[in-house]
């Protein structure tokens, strides 16, 4: 039991802090929402009403979509783009899709390679893109959910101010939708870009996200 916990510590840790943060967001989000309701002379909502509301849904999904976009772009950009000196980058001469031999697929697969890497053909090609496909699907699903929840939230505010609601096609080109979207995108792009550059010169002893402390600044793609 303890061994299983230890072997899965990273995913368990992030799973737990995700749930704690989401729970915290729901509690303080409801408090902020009810404060706004009181200001507008409207009724306060219960916890259950808040966590099933468009206000909570749009706040959650606008962050989810940007996180999945961040990883989607990172996974794809690091295939073709390199950064000299960064452990986040491949070696400078390895940019591109790499050979079947390097990727250990089809006839180059090992005995312990996943079955989908060994079979070859379309299934292996799709498996070779499976991480990007999943991240892309999660990004578009979250972004789509943000547009629907955002529309409901925006229209609730419109009606509260005696204004006409808008249609989905109008909302997805409206400033509210793009403000929510871009404020999240810029922070994700800044964080990833900072990580790529900072990791050239700075170190964290023991972390696979860092080069070894004694590795030269010029070494690229070296994490151990």
């Amino acid at each position: 039991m303890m061994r299983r916990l230890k072997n899965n510590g990273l995913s368990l840790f992030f799973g737990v802090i995700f749930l704690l943060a989401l729970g915290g967001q729901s509690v303080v989000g409801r408090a902020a929402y009810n404060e706004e309701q009181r200001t507008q002379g409207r009724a306060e909502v219960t916890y259950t009403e808040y966590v099933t509301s468009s206000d909570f849904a749009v706040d959650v999904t606008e962050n989810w979509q940007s996180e999945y976009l961040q990883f989607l772009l990172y996974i794809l950009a690091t295939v073709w783009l390199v950064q000299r000196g960064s452990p986040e980058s491949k070696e400078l001469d390895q940019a591109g899709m790499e050979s079947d031999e390097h990727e250990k697929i089809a006839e180059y697969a090992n005995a312990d390679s996943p079955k989908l890497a060994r079979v070859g053909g379309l299934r292996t090609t799709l498996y070779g893109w499976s991480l990007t496909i999943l991240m892309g699907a999660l990004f578009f699903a979250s972004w789509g959910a943000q547009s629907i929840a955002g529309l409901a939230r925006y229209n609730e505010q419109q009606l509260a101010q005696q204004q006409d609601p808008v249609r989905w096609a109008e909302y997805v080109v409206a400033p509210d939708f793009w403000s929510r979207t871009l404020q999240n995108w810029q922070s994700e792009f800044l964080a990833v870009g900072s990580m790529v550059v900072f990791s050239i010169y700075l170190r964290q002893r023991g972390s696979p996200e860092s080069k070894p402390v004694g590795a030269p600044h010029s070494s690229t793609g070296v994490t151990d």
Partner: protein
Amino acid sequence: MTPLRVSLLALTITLAASCAGRTEERSRAETAAVAFYEAVAQQDGIAACALLAPETQHEVETSAKQPCDEAITDEDLPDELGRVTETTVFGNEARVMADGDTVFVSDFDGFWRVVAAGCTTRGDVPYDCELKGG
């Protein structure tokens, strides 16, 4: 039953329940607007004021400097709501459009109340409403 089928079934039930809930909310929002106009038409100030949102009730009393149930029947509202043509609900807010007026209502703990009535559209800016809270 496979996990995929269970998920699809759960999604279908959730969507069906959500649609049913929306229909019910629309009906209750519409009922509030209709009942408010009926009370005003019958000069029943007490019933009409009971259907107003607290802020709107306060505004009626403040501007008329008399109790809501006496002031509400003097408000310059259309003679009748008329046939309801469209009711739109988002969250706790709704707009009831009818041949005679456009009324905005809000959900107060499961009880829909009139926030604004006697409203005329002005395009992209808020409706111009004869009766309005806040």
